[in-house]
């Protein structure tokens, strides 16, 4: 980034109208980190309000509900999904497959514009009176009856959905048709596989969400009765349609996040991915099952008993492909030769966050256990471990790992390590107490809990944890901005990776990515270190 700036000078117009996938990736990163910052601020306000029973910061619940809405919607729709499938996929996926750019560069540019338009609409919700207060789920009848402006929510979802669909088409075509000669399907980086799987999920399921929120819009503003039970609407159908997309959306986040871990652990451990093919099939196993598990979000919503039991089995069974992916991840550590740096530190932490998040999902897959745990702090802690901690930490892992690729510089190691430990301590302090009070019945989405005075000390801990995390996050972002311009210069392939984005192009890559057309030999693999063909830029060079 700084190099290109130094050589050509910073030109805002060039950035806005860029069709270069790398610059678009950086734009996604800036947008999603901005969303993280605002939504993180909301999280701090939420935690401060929950510090004690009674009202600390607010005079009525409406304000708090707006924070919750924005925190949830922005974190998932504007930070995690764009951070993983916007920023990371854009920046590194074409490099990994040896492509000069994506298949439709201008559509790609349009996607990122839509993304920014969506963020602006979401933020506008705060400026106009009556911001949405409907949680990121927007269940009717409340979302129809509320004075809040549900339209901001609907349009945000529309724009992001449209952006994601265009992105999905673009990247699927790119991976299928633009792989460099020799980069065959079973030599693709796991990150490429996970991203492709995520985009397939996006493409198939997003229209359903778009349809659901559109009908919500009609109900609220045009007087239709799609979801109004009194007028023949179906009060539960919105929830079904919503989760029919939104549970797969968890895997849209989870899969690329795991993909990042594979890249980092394999590179830092100079080790091949354990049972690569099993991991690839497991990824597609998740895609196959993910459309049949949404009812676990509706275990206490009054669905017929037999559906709740049927989907308990499918939900539990998704642990089989997830388990196989974990096994490959763990196996990649076996007999590795691990070099520790910030990216590896985050990756190692992610393994433990994933364990806690994943395993606490098992009781929640069981209908009868969820009959008590649904909508409690336990659920809150579970999905924050998966999404907020694991997936977010994977984004950070990716940023640190590809930082030299993007900027040609290293992020400052000391500040990075310090902020890592602050973050790690902070997030664990925030969410472990919530597991405990969740089992005792503390509900989610409460700003006041006069009925549960016994939980106050746990809320104290969680709030302190959030404050600590805020310090760590601030340190991390300051580090990125500072190091992007003034960090220590990095060599072309600082980690000694075998993957194409490191071996075949300069850091940062110029227009067209690769100085020469990429052709790889038959024994090439992004994960092969033992019998490495060649570290040279041209892979046409014979193996050693």
């Amino acid at each position, binding site marked *: 980034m700084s190099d290109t700036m130094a050589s050509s000078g910073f030109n805002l117009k060039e950035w806005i109208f860029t069709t270069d996938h790398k610059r678009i990736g950086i734009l996604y990163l800036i947008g999603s980190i901005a969303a993280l910052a605002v939504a993180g601020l909301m999280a701090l306000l939420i935690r401060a309000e929950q510090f004690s029973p009674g009202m600390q910061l607010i005079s*009525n*619940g409406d304000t708090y*509900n707006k924070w919750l809405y924005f925190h949830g919607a922005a974190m998932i729709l504007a930070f995690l999904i764009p951070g993983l499938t916007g920023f990371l996929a854009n920046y590194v996926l074409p490099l990994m497959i040896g492509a000069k750019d994506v298949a439709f560069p201008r559509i790609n540019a349009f996607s990122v514009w839509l993304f920014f338009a969506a963020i602006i609409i979401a933020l506008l919700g705060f400026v106009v009176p009556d911001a949405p*207060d409907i949680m990121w789920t927007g*269940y009717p*009848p*409340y979302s129809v009856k509320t004075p809040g402006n549900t339209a901001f929510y609907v349009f945000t979802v529309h724009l992001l959905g449209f952006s994601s669909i265009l992105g999905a088409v673009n990247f699927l075509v790119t991976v299928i048709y633009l792989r460099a000669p020799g980069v065959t399907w079973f030599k693709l980086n796991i990150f490429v596989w996970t991203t492709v799987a995520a985009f397939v999920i996006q493409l198939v399921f997003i229209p359903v969400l778009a349809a659901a929120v559109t009908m919500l819009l009609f109900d609220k503003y045009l007087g239709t009765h799609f979801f109004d*039970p*009194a007028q023949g609407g179906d*009060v539960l159908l919105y929830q079904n349609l919503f989760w029919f997309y939104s549970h797969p959306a968890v895997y849209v986040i989870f899969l690329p996040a795991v993909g990042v871990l594979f890249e980092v652990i394999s590179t830092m*451990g*100079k*080790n*091949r*991915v*354990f*049972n690569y*093919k*099993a991991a690839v099939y*497991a990824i597609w196993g998740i895609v196959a099952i993910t459309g049949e598990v949404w009812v676990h979000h509706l275990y*206490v*919503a009054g669905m017929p*008993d037999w559906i709740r039991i049927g989907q308990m*089995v499918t939900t*539990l069974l998704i*642990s*089989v492909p997830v*388990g*196989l992916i974990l096994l490959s991840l*763990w196996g990649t550590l076996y*007999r*590795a*030769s*691990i070099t520790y740096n910030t990216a590896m530190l985050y990756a*190692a932490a992610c393994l*433990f966050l994933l*364990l*806690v998040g994943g*395993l606490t999902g*098992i*009781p929640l897959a*069981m*209908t*009868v*256990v969820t*009959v*008590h745990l649904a*909508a*409690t702090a336990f659920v809150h802690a579970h999905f924050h471990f998966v999404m907020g901690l694991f997936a977010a930490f994977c984004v950070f892992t990716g940023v640190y790992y590809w930082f030299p690729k993007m900027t040609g510089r290293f992020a400052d190691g000391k500040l990075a390590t310090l902020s890592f430990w602050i973050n790690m301590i902070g997030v664990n302090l925030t969410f472990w107490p919530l597991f405990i009070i969740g*089992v*005792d019945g503390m*509900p989610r*989405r409460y*700003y*006041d*809990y*006069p*009925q549960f005075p016994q939980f106050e000390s746990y809320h104290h801990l969680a709030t302190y944890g959030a404050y600590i995390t805020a310090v760590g996050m601030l340190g991390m972002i300051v580090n990125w901005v500072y190091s992007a311009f003034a960090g220590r210069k990095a060599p072309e392939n600082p980690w000694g990776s075998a993957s194409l984005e490191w071996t075949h192009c300069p850091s940062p890559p110029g227009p067209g990515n690769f100085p020469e057309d990429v052709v790889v030999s038959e024994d090439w693999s992004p994960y092969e270190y*033992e019998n*490495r063909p060649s570290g040279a830029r041209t892979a046409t060079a014979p193996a050693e």
Partner: protein
Amino acid sequence: MNRFERLLTLSFGAVASLAAGAASASEAAGYGGGAAGSGGVSDPAAGWNHLWNEVLIDITVIGVVFGVAALYMLIRYRAKSPTAVGHGPKLKGAAAVAFALVPAAIFMADDFFLSAKGWTLWNIYRRVPPNALEIKVTGHQWYYEFDYGNGVNVVAMPGSDDYLRVPVGRPIVMRMTADDVIHSLSLPHYRVKEDIMPGRMTYIWFLPTEARKDVVTCTMFCGDNHSQMWTNIEAMPPAQFEAWLASQKKQAQGQRAVENKG
């Protein structure tokens, strides 16, 4: 390669036998919704606590095995020199398939084990005993209304003395609906909740086994005062409950008489 296979086989064998052990131990401990309440009705809440402990053991075992393995490998396999490379196994053919199928089978076994356990208790949760006392619940923004029949209607404003009262020792079934938006009736102590919505009836049942006072609260986001939509539930000795119900009935009749006059 051989050593490696043996190692992994051992570790997964350990997981499997631990899971099987936990299963048989829990079977031996006698499962069936925990201690049977009065009248041979099993108490769903006791069953829940029992199942919860089993699941907790299950996930703790898996978590510890994976966690310790990760920690061990992260420390053990640090790079000896900057140029050192890893020597992870290159799985081919049967070994690759075996390393996918065997763990998949183990995970699946655990899934089905948990499914069976969950289903058994679920059936208890959904089959209301015939002698249950029925209370009709209506959710409003932001309070509950409990209808005992015969004109006894308790409007339970948060924190007031009008709250849900039930007799000890008799199953209670709540038939629930809502007036405006979706709410939820959560009884954390009795380990049960279900959403309540306009135009549909949902139900839960539970068995109060001792006299005590607990919280009833809303767990489905329902607007500004969602956090303050709560009341109490008091399980009372049957005689005391009957006396209370009779007094309420009298009051209701009195009220009706006044209304008829006016």
